[in-house]
């Protein structure tokens, strides 16, 4: 699954650690999601959408 986390973070000038703190997860978790090594659960995807003030579809796409 592709995602726009890096772009969304850059727009807000957040580091992975900043985003991790907002999501209450580890920086390693953010890195794994961002690099596409781990697909988050639906609750975490909703939390990401809330943190960025957007929708899940605007962050993730099912393209390879």
């Amino acid at each position, binding site marked *: 699954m592709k995602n726009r986390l890096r772009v969304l973070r850059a727009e807000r000038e957040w580091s992975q650690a900043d985003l991790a703190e907002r999501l209450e*997860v*580890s920086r390693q978790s953010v890195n794994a999601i961002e690099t596409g090594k781990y697909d988050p*659960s639906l609750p975490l995807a909703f939390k990401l959408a809330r943190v960025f003030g957007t929708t899940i579809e605007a962050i993730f796409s099912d393209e390879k």
Partner: protein
Amino acid sequence: MGCTTNNPAARRYCRRFLFTMLLYTLFLVLAVWAFVHFRPTGPLAWLLAVLPALAIIGQLVVFGIYLAEEKDEFQRTIAVQSMLWGIGATLSVTVVWGFLENFVHVRHLDLILIYPLYCFLSGISFGLLQLRYK
């Protein structure tokens, strides 16, 4: 999952794990001491023999509590994956060893060594998974 991490669930896991290790050491020393000095028999012998194993079972329970308390789903996934790799590797090693014992008469593998083998192999799996997701 270290004792100095920022993750509260991992810190609690580490403290509980160390407590079970302390219990294991105490129970083992007690059992060895009792069998050497008093040669107990009957139910008391059974109880003393099983005491160290109860501490080991406690470690498995502590791991289960960690999985239930860990709020970071990715960390939980890594912990479960390392456990599954550890179980798979331990079963593979022991089943191969079992057939070797039956057919080519290699040295007997004491059952008491299987849990440390599982811990070792799970630890390696955990390290490799940490590298993969670094």
